[in-house]
């Protein structure tokens, strides 16, 4: 019996170990080794920290690094602000069928690929696009308006792309909040704002934190949206990694960038958990 149980355990564990080992641990070790070497001449490499020094001293790389971090945090914040009322309406106000239908509406855009969704935004926002034409037709603008290729367009794309990943955890946590608790809050003389602050937000905190972590990670690692909507000033950190690896054939610097991004995202997630006073265990469990 015991040996059977052990075989079962091993069989169940194997996919996980293979997955983590082959796709995550081994490639990362290789990346780390690549990032720690420097090209001397044709096919000759030496171990050094030159790549990290370069990444940390060149103002351009640092600027892009911080820009990406700040913009991702901003995108996460905006997503939360938009998603919270939506999630609250779906979880608390809408009942029965309407609830399901609204939830489906949030889901439907994700049936098509990210590329198609981004192209959709391009069709809407471009100079000869729908919004521009509409503004001219209504007389609000007398010439074509360019709304694409700037940071605002990029932000719209980022928020739109990650909306669902904020709404789902929020709806789940808000649904578990008993309506009578909210009523009790009002009965005890609380106003709308104090009920929100004292009851609803504390209860939804696990959902908020896990939603924020997912959205932040998605924004930070997004390649398509910043490249397509962002235009000429929008250097995103993932784009720099792609450039180093593919365009410049400089794997060493690209690998160093990759590790910097890994450290950055870990630090910010850790900071977010510390700030909200939660542990990873609570958030995930």
């Amino acid at each position, binding site marked *: 019996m015991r040996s059977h149980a052990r075989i079962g355990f*091993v069989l169940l564990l*194997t996919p996980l170990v293979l997955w983590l080992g082959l796709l995550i641990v081994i490639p990362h070790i290789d990346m780390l080794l690549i990032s720690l070497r420097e090209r001397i001449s044709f096919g000759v490499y030496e171990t050094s920290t030159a790549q990290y020094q370069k990444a940390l001293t060149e103002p351009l790389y640092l600027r892009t690094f911080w820009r990406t971090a700040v913009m991702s945090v901003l995108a996460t914040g905006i997503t939360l602000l938009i998603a919270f009322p939506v999630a609250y309406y779906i979880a608390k106000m809408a009942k029965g069928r309407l609830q399901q239908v609204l939830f489906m509406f949030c889901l439907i855009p994700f049936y098509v690929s990210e590329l198609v969704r981004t192209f959709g935004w391009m069709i809407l926002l471009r100079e000869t696009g729908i919004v521009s034409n509409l503004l001219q037709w209504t007389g609000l603008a007398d010439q074509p308006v360019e709304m*694409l290729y700037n940071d605002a367009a990029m932000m719209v794309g980022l928020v739109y792309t990650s909306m669902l990943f904020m709404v789902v955890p929020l709806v789940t946590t808000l649904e578990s909040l008993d309506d009578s608790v909210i009523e009790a809050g009002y009965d005890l003389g609380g106003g709308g704002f104090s009920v929100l602050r004292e009851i609803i937000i504390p209860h939804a905190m696990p959902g908020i934190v896990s939603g924020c972590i997912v959205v932040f990670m998605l924004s930070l690692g997004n390649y398509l949206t910043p*490249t397509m909507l962002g235009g*000429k000033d929008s*250097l995103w950190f993932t784009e720099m990694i792609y*450039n180093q690896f593919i365009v410049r054939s400089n794997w060493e610097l690209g690998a160093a960038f990759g590790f910097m991004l890994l450290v950055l995202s870990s630090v910010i997630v850790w900071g977010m958990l510390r700030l909200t006073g939660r542990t990873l265990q609570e958030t995930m469990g």
Partner: protein
Amino acid sequence: MTKIFMTTTCLAVLGLAQAASADTLRLLTWGGYAPDEVVEMFEEQTGHTVEVTKSNNEEMIAKLRATGGGGFDLAQPSQDRIMGPQMEFGIYKPIDVSKLNQDLFIPSMLKATMENTTVNGEVYGVPHVWGTSGLVMNTAEAGEVVKDYTDLCASDVAGKVSYRLKRPTLIGFAFAMGEDPFAAYGDEAKYAEIMGKVEAKLIECKANVKTYWGGGDELMNLVRSGEVTAAMAWDTGGWKLNEDNADITFVAPASGALGWIDTFVLPAKGQADDVAYEWINFVMQPEISARITAGAGNFTASAGADEFAEDALKAKYQASFPAEAVDNIKWYPPVPAGLESIEGEVLDRVQAAN
């Protein structure tokens, strides 16, 4: 545990081995260089199968580098991208030119490509498709202003121009500014100096640019919709747009169009060299080459294919390239390693500049 692992590994290896059986040609090429009809004709005639993967120069080299030259049996990088990567990463294997029907090639082009792709006395590439990059513009709106790359920075076309942030732009601007970057290929300090001037110009010019285009389709949309009136692009893009709007066409810039030749190379770990040679001999036949020209819009190094090319395309080519413009084409020499990192930093700084 070990047993399961071994079995899985064996199965995976078997699967991989099967995919690479000798009768399959895994071709790494550009969009349009292996049209479906040509692939079908080849498969019918020889019984081999062809798997086409579409890519571009940088991705081709990155893919081959990642596998040490494996995964593909025939690749088509530009001729200037063969010597450097070969010396650096050893991702190609020498081509046995005697296995090719050399009569099918335009002799001068074959000779030049072979010379440009020779490393340690071994030839690594033979020419296939060639073309130029220059200016694609709406001649009615920008024709008076834009005569050369640097004219893209003129205030008359502000907000209506686009180019790529890639090395052809750096080279083109350098020529238009009166420098000769190709002559400085051997002198890193001189090259860095030229690139410094180009960087300053491109940063100054940035406000004029609507967006830096990435893919051919993106640019076509920008020009077709009229949002962009002048751009730095490939000749075929201009000729394709010319079919929809007679005002839009390709113009060779005053400082000279930049000429490229895409080649055939054998990846170091290719497993179907004989099929690869068969494919090269097949597509270089004049009738087949003419079909590729009709599809991709670019001319090939096949001798005699001109006769089969469409008259419309020939007319466009002649309109864009008067005799003196042909002589003025600047052909890319092989890129020495090291220069690309200078260019990379310049491009990064231009993109990040405000």
